[in-house]
């Protein structure tokens, strides 16, 4: 079993594995999305206070969770690549960034669209949205840094260090923003904060969890796809890549 695992740390073998896995991951993602959307849009009842608008939650909350999860994956794989010099780990960090940034963007947009009917403004500086915005900047910074460095090794290592500094700062940023938020606003409980409270009805909880799972598998599907392109790019001087390029001419 050990031998099989280590074999896939080699880019060439992982390329083939990723190619086989991607369609299956994609299929499971699509099924989960279907189930989640069905339960979220058709089965779950309207909310007592927010009516139908709360259904945005089934997109907003999973997107926000994913924005954090993908950043952890990015920082974690970056750290693995930095410490043990594993190229695939470096590649996972690089390909995760645009996916995570897009989830963060989705969380911000849906947060704004949810806020307008609830609070009356298109943007509200509440603790969650503000932290999400700063997370978006962290993603952009990571991508900008990697884009500015030509040498792939330096780019991966610099990005990994930046991501680690970011990860350590995220709790500090979150804490500071929460303090700042309670400081500048009276203690009015926002509608979104209420959703975080424990008593969420199962008919609403299950679609939420299914959507979160769907988004997670979606991330892995797209990451696998991007990894294949990244592997071809980085290993372009090897014979096996040459065959792939030549064969498909």
């Amino acid at each position: 079993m050990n031998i099989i695992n280590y074999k896939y740390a080699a880019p060439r073998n992982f390329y083939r594995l990723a190619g086989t896995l991607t369609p299956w991951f994609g299929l499971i993602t699509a099924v989960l999305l279907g189930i989640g959307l069905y339960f979220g849009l058709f089965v779950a009842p309207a909310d007592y206070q927010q009516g139908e608008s709360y259904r945005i939650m089934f997109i907003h909350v999973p997107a926000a969770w994913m924005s954090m999860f993908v950043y952890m994956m990015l920082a974690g794989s970056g750290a693995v690549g930095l410490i043990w010099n594993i190229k695939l780990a470096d590649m996972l960090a690089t390909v995760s960034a645009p996916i995570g940034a897009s989830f963060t963007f989705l969380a911000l947009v849906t947060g704004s669209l949810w806020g307008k009917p609830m609070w009356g403004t298109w943007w509200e500086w509440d603790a969650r949205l503000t932290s999400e915005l700063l997370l978006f900047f962290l993603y952009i910074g990571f991508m900008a840094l990697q884009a500015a460095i030509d040498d792939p090794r330096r780019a991966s290592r610099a990005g990994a260090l930046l991501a680690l500094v970011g990860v350590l700062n995220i709790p500090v940023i979150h804490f500071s923003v929460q303090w700042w938020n309670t400081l500048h606003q009276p203690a009015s409980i926002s509608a979104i904060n209420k959703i975080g409270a424990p008593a969420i009805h199962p008919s609403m909880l299950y679609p939420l969890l299914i959507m979160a799972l769907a988004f997670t598998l979606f991330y892995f599907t797209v990451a696998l796809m991007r990894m294949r392109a990244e592997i071809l790019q980085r290993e372009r001087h090897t014979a096996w890549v040459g065959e792939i390029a030549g064969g498909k001419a």
Partner: protein
Amino acid sequence: MNWSEFFAMGGYGLYVWGSYGCAALVLVGNVLSALHKHKTTLKMLRDYSRLDEAGTK
């Protein structure tokens, strides 16, 4: 199933469908972007090997 009620979403239709639409864009966008990247990488490799062969002649 009252479809017109469903699309109106209790008056919040713009916001709800705007959100789900944005989600669709993000998901589809990610997939298309990944496919595009794969395609351009293969093209780059082909050009690379073509120039390589031309250089060694």
